[in-house]
């Protein structure tokens, strides 16, 4: 019913939304991770090994891939408990690099040639949609719960939360593990859609992109990651169609103000449809930090919407 192009765009948007939620889970307890690409790789390779080498059906392999990534997440989460800020970034970054090197040197999964001929899953879009709905329901419930409040308190003052009896260690580990598991699911979906991956597929740039999704969308509400991932994934597509729309402008207007030539100049310079779109991400990040450091969607902006009145805190 949807043409291949639209379907492919939707699938990548969906996988990016899932990846953004994988960043959001640990971020809710104040942990900023650059390791989500690494966890995606763990889930992707684990599920692809299961379908290709062991002949397991895709849904089973996807679920196991997520669990494996989650377990790895808890293992990485232990040393991550004691450190914060820049040091946590470096630790998770180091983890991603380790995963890349292992994948590169492991002949069983193709080594430097990459993991080829992964079975194609024709229903990726459906799976993606189901997982996104489940994630939004999950995080909505966390938001409305005592656990969610405890996570917020850890984010805002970890020592105070700990002294007030909040089990900071277990909650942070739980959040990190859940985040890794979600990343693993995103990786499994990606692998069985792209049917090929190598050590550079889940690289540091992907981790930075995932972080950008949440920073742009807003990390203080559970709608933020979905919004950020959608906006940033669709932005290049939007800009592409924008060029076609510019063609429709009357010539008199474009002679007076040559928007189409401004567009072409920017396009040649930034190449935002392709690899160099990270330049645009960088600019967006800088602008966001200045204009709206809490992201597009914040708790306050959600409170202003009438249909969110039933949110907690108002008995």
């Amino acid at each position, binding site marked *: 019913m949807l043409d291949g192009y639209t379907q492919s765009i939707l699938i990548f948007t969906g996988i990016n939304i899932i990846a953004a939620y994988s960043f959001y889970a640990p971020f809710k307890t104040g942990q900023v991770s650059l390791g989500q690409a690494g966890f995606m790789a763990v889930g992707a390779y684990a599920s692809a090994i299961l379908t290709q080498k062991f002949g397991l059906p895709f849904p089973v392999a996807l679920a196991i891939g997520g669990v494996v990534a989650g377990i790895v997440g808890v293992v990485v989460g232990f040393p991550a408990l004691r450190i914060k800020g820049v040091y946590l970034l470096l630790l998770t970054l180091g983890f991603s690099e380790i995963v890349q090197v292992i994948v590169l040197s492991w002949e069983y999964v193709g080594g430097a040639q990459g993991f080829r001929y992964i079975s194609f899953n024709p229903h990726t879009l459906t799976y993606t949609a189901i997982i996104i709905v489940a994630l939004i329901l999950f995080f909505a419930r966390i938001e409305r719960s*005592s656990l969610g409040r405890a996570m917020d308190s850890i984010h805002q003052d970890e020592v105070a939360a700990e002294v*007030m009896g909040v089990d900071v260690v277990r909650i942070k580990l739980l959040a990190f593990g859940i985040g890794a598991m979600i990343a693993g699911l995103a990786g499994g979906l990606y692998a069985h859609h792209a049917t090929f991956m190598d050590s550079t597929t889940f690289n540091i740039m992907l981790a930075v992109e995932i972080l950008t999704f949440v920073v742009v969308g807003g990390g203080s509400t559970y709608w933020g990651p979905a919004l950020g991932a959608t906006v940033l994934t669709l932005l290049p597509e939007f800009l592409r169609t924008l060029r076609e729309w510019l063609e429709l402008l009357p010539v008199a207007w474009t002679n007076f103000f040559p928007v189409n030539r401004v567009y072409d100049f920017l396009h040649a310079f930034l190449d935002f449809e392709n690899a160099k779109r990270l330049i645009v991400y960088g600019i967006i990040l800088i602008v966001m930090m200045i204009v709206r450091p809490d992201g597009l969607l914040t708790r306050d902006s959600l409170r202003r919407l009438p249909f969110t009145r039933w949110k907690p805190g108002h008995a």
Partner: protein
Amino acid sequence: MLEQTANGVCLAIEGLTKRFGGFYALNDVNVEVASGHIHALIGPNGAGKTTFFNLITGVLSADAGRILFEGRLVDDARPSNRTVKGIARTFQNIRLFPHLTVLETVMIGEHCRSYPSVWKALGKAVLQRPFGEAQEERTMRANALELLEFLGLAGQRDAKASDLAYGDQRKLEMARALATKPRLLLLDEPAAGMNPHETQELDEVITRIRDRGVTIVLVEHDMRLVMDISDRVTVLNFGTKIADGNPKEIQNNPTVIEAYLGEDVQL
């Protein structure tokens, strides 16, 4: 000020020592706090009072000595476990959660009582009904409101914690600590930054908390407050205990007057 010497011992500190490098923040300190007392801990700046609190709550670990709470050794590495056992505190430099509302802040204190394990918290969160709220939430909210009422903050329950006036932030810290249902409450300079009227009010608040059955250890510089409400006073100077007694004895103790307040000062 009741002389309740017949009471049991709530907190017993034996030989507590903490070094920072070669500097003794606390050196072989012994203190006994009777149940139901308001026990003040005074001393000049740098005497080790806040370190004392940090050791009892587990924010720092001691180099030597034992902490006995209600006769049992407290040796949990993590502060949250000690809070679960019934020891709560406030902070000298206010540490509220800036983006939570007043009501939510107090409910954080109750989290460890309603949800003793992370799995229960996760299960209740995931399996909750989409509208309405769980029994636990209702109980927590009711208890939190009762505490806010008790401390006179009920009118500001939906304000952000960071938007409260300074004195109210101190009270909110007390409400949050009380929400953990402690049997021992450590108050770290509750009157700091308060005006005389607010301090007067604090007298009454602390006494009422004690009357709820909570033993209180109080670090405070406001001597009027300390002498008015304390059942017993311990004086620290440079990490060592120099005196221990009821307010009257402390006021007339020459060592205290000399070391802490300078000579020729009438307390």
